[in-house]
């Protein structure tokens, strides 16, 4: 039997209420011991009760407690959710008390893992839940929901069906070679069929790029020499739009300075230090970090000073971003112009809103955000899925290539079968041992 686990299932610091979720066979009994109110062990399933968390005679918090009995719950186990509104410290205190009472702190992604293991979700759905947890914008939430409904699964099913039809024909030819009146798949009639599969996979991949932008947002690095106004531009952007709290688990957390929503897409601003040639060791570390940010960003905004002449540092930066998606923003156009530059640039300052709007329009144009926010949303987006689709596509391409060589049909069938298997892995129809472990290690706690 699964032991009982608990975790805070809302992002810390967001909203007034925090929810602590407890799941497992002892969930109801153990929370009941701490709850002053109705006897939770006697209440009906899927009901909410008002009361207090009391520990050693001390009232810790005023709470609402939901009791959800197995199997109609997220994990298919008994679940108790404690809605606390006492802020971070109170929430943490309740969690500590639960742990002291023998409830184990959940591992990363353990609730979702249980939901999956208990047959509540298939793999694509489980990944969608992961996205849902991380969903910052409405559009992302929509994408996650579409996926949950299995639209992506349906698309992949469709491609797999085309493949399996072809494969079974090849297999029949091989197993029943004496039957000459069955259509034989040959090197002549194979290419159009393979190309059809290739096209389907490619369009799926094309859509997945959109999916990636919707899901991961656009990483933006604002760079420039010290004191050209990078921070003021960022602050102006953040102030004007509702800034999104950054305290969310993610690999780039330490360098993401702020996020802004634009046409439903998340712009993530990467913190960069001012860049100039320097011998100062501390400053140099900052500069190196900024160069790294340039490499990782999807978009670079180079800020220049309208009131200064273009110098070597500026020129070097211009050269550096030449091959990346970039925008040159000439700041401080409220001051007399001294800068001479032969580039497509945007003029503006942080006092007037016009310049900032031009900047945003430019971003929308560069990434075709209008189109993305209106797209059908039936797209794949996780790195695992995209990787598998690419593998499937590679196998099909290899099959197409091999049709033109003297390789026999049974080798070509191996490539086709491989594509079929990889797509099966996306929807969980093919089982790989390591798959689950990899998948679940990247889930965050809670739903």
């Amino acid at each position: 039997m699964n032991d009982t686990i608990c975790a805070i299932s809302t992002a810390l610091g967001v909203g007034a209420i925090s929810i602590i979720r407890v799941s497992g066979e002892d969930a109801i009994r153990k929370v009941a011991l701490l709850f002053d109110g109705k006897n939770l062990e006697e209440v009906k399933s899927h009901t909410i009760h008002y009361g207090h968390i009391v520990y050693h005679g001390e009232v810790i918090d005023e709470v609402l407690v939901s009791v959800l009995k197995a199997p109609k719950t997220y994990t298919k186990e008994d679940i108790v959710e404690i809605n606390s509104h006492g802020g971070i410290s109170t929430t943490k205190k309740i969690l500590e008390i639960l742990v002291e009472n023998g409830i184990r702190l959940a591992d990363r992604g353990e609730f979702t893992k249980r939901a999956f293991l208990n047959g509540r979700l298939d793999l694509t759905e489980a990944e969608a839940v992961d996205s849902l947890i991380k969903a910052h914008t409405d559009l992302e939430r929509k994408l996650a929901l579409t996926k949950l409904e299995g639209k992506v699964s349906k698309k992949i099913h469709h491609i797999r069906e085309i493949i399996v039809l072809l494969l079974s024909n090849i297999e029949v030819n091989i197993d029943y070679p004496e039957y000459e009146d069955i259509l034989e798949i040959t090197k002549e009639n194979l290419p159009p069929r393979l190309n059809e599969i290739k096209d389907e996979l490619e369009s799926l991949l094309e859509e997945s790029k959109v999916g990636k932008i919707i899901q991961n947002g656009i990483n933006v690095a604002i760079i420039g020499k010290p004191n050209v106004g990078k921070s003021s531009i960022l602050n102006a952007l953040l102030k004007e739009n509702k800034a999104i709290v950054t305290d969310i688990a993610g690999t780039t957390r330490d360098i993401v300075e702020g996020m802004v929503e634009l046409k439903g897409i998340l712009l993530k601003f990467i913190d960069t230090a001012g860049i100039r040639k320097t011998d100062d060791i501390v400053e140099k570390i900052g500069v190196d970090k900024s160069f790294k940010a340039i490499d990782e960003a999807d978009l670079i905004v180079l800020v220049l000073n309208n009131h200064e002449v273009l110098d070597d540092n500026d020129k070097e930066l211009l050269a550096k971003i030449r091959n990346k998606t970039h925008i040159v923003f000439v700041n401080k156009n409220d001051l007399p112009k001294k800068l001479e530059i032969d580039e497509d640039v945007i003029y503006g300052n942080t006092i007037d809103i016009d310049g900032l709007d031009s900047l945003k329009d430019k971003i929308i144009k560069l990434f075709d955000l209008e189109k993305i926010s209106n797209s059908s949303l039936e797209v794949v987006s996780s790195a695992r899925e995209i990787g598998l689709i690419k593998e499937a596509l590679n196998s099909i391409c290899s099959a197409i290539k091999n049709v033109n060589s003297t390789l026999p049909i049974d080798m070509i069938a191996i490539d086709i079968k491989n594509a079929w298997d990889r797509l099966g892995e996306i929807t969980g129809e093919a089982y790989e041992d390591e798959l689950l472990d990899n998948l679940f290690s990247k889930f965050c706690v809670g739903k």
Partner: protein
Amino acid sequence: MFDLIVVGGGHAGCEAAHIAGVLGLNTLLVTANSKNIADMPCNPSIGGTAKGIIVREIDALGGIMGKVADRTHFQIKMLNNGKGPAVRSLRAQADKVTYPKVMRDYLDNTLNLTIMEGMVEDLIVKDNKVEGVILSNQKKIYSASVILTTGTYLKANILIGSENTLGGPHGEERSNYLSDNLKKLGLDIQRLKTGTPPRIKKDSIDFSQMEEETGDDCYYTFSFDNPPFYKIDEQQKCYLLYTNDLTHKIIRENLDKSAMYGGYVTGIGPRYCPSIEDKIVRFKDKERHQLFLEPESVYYDEWYLQGFSTSMPRDIQEELVHSLKGLDKAVITKYAYAIEYDALNPLEMKVSLENKKIENLFTAGQINGTSGYEEAAGQGLMAGINAHHKLKGLEPLVLRRDEAYIGVLIDDLVTKGTKEPYRMLTSRAEYRLILRHDNADLRLREIGYQHGTIDEERYLKLKKKREEISEVKNILRNQYLKLNQEVKDFLISKNIEIPSFSTNLYMFLKRPEINMDIIKMFVSLDYSDEVLEEVEIDVKYEGYIAKVYKEAEKAKRLEEKLIPSDINYDDVANLANEARGKLKDVRPISIGQASRISGVNPADIAILSVYLRKKYDK
């Protein structure tokens, strides 16, 4: 008292009895009619796609089917030659007169083996352990173990139209009580069906109306141990013909008269071997179906009409046969029939082919729900080896899916069960690229040697072959193609692209247009064709083969995660009900096997893995 009694002298029984004798078990083969040992009641051929590879595997492991086929066929072909090395397979037209004779000779010359006639109707079982058999005359024969290879003889019914005769093939006596007695012992019995086409008198056939099908014009053998015994130009011909509108019309109009469609059959027949009425009903749009005429023997003049199996009454069969081009005056010597028989549920046996409920009882062949001489023989061989191992306290020999078609066959049976007679297909083998005709000895001879079925001499021959293969590869790696004018001219004359830089012959052989014959122009290779063929396949398909080995290696890790035999699936929380039931039925030996059970999904496997880790790893 015997060590082992083998019940039934068909293809499974012959291999089981032979290998048990070789391994030193004091063995008794009981057969209802000793004239029917190794009888071929259906098609007059050994091999076929995938099946031909099973015959090679049997030979590699010390069995005799391939040796007998080599000595008794009158036509042989390599199927799928153009479709790639992995799916090549031999098919031979075996003579129905000489095949059983030669097989009988082999058995008569097997040490420790006694053959007797008798109809086994019951088992002696004490404390769930088999101790012998009881014959229809109530005589008891005691033994430490029993292998049942009763084929289609358990409660067999022959159906022709609405006519239903109790009996086995050729009107032989059937076993009336054995399956009921097995049921009483707690075994699950299922009813299966198969069929066979009509036989036609040779001189009533007008062959000029049909297309000839000849044997290949090069020499092949099933066995790794003997030379070919035939002459290419003395091979017999087979013929190809087609059904037509009239045939289809007759079938449609008389459908309700067939045993199958008239509702006289309760058994489940195989989808891959449909009767002609099935073909017409299920593939309405097809204008014609292929049929083959094959001689059954050179010693009598009956021909087998392959593809025309039916359970229509005799008068309709006459009409049908006469509707075919070239058979309008045909004389039917034996009418087609459907046969129903009792079989066991293969889920009730272990991977060793030992019964889960009755210790020391093994089963092989059609009684396990399979179809085909080769599938039967493969199981017979494994049952014989494992009966021996059981008695000697050794671990059973279990072939993995990446080691042999026989492994695939048995794993499928004990993992998925079967609701229709099971035929081996190459598409059932996910690792078929490494389960080839050519490398059966490289895959299995050493295993046979370790298990006592392959002698020292043959093992040394295998070792030599392996060494030679690596020698040739080394030669090719170290020999560079010298691009002098002579070589260039030669390549141009053969329409082969000249390499832009000097390459070794190993890499050169990888090119699609290069084969071993061309390589031999540049380096002298004094090795057997088998060795050179092996090198060619290994080198040419190296990338693909490596991929398959990688996949197999991954799967092997799951096979090595063993499930303790005392596991109680009720203790594993959160398993889906269907999965729990299936796991209880199959009782898989490993996580790998569990993952192949239909109805057990990845989530269940993950739960099971976690449970095992928690419970047994501490």
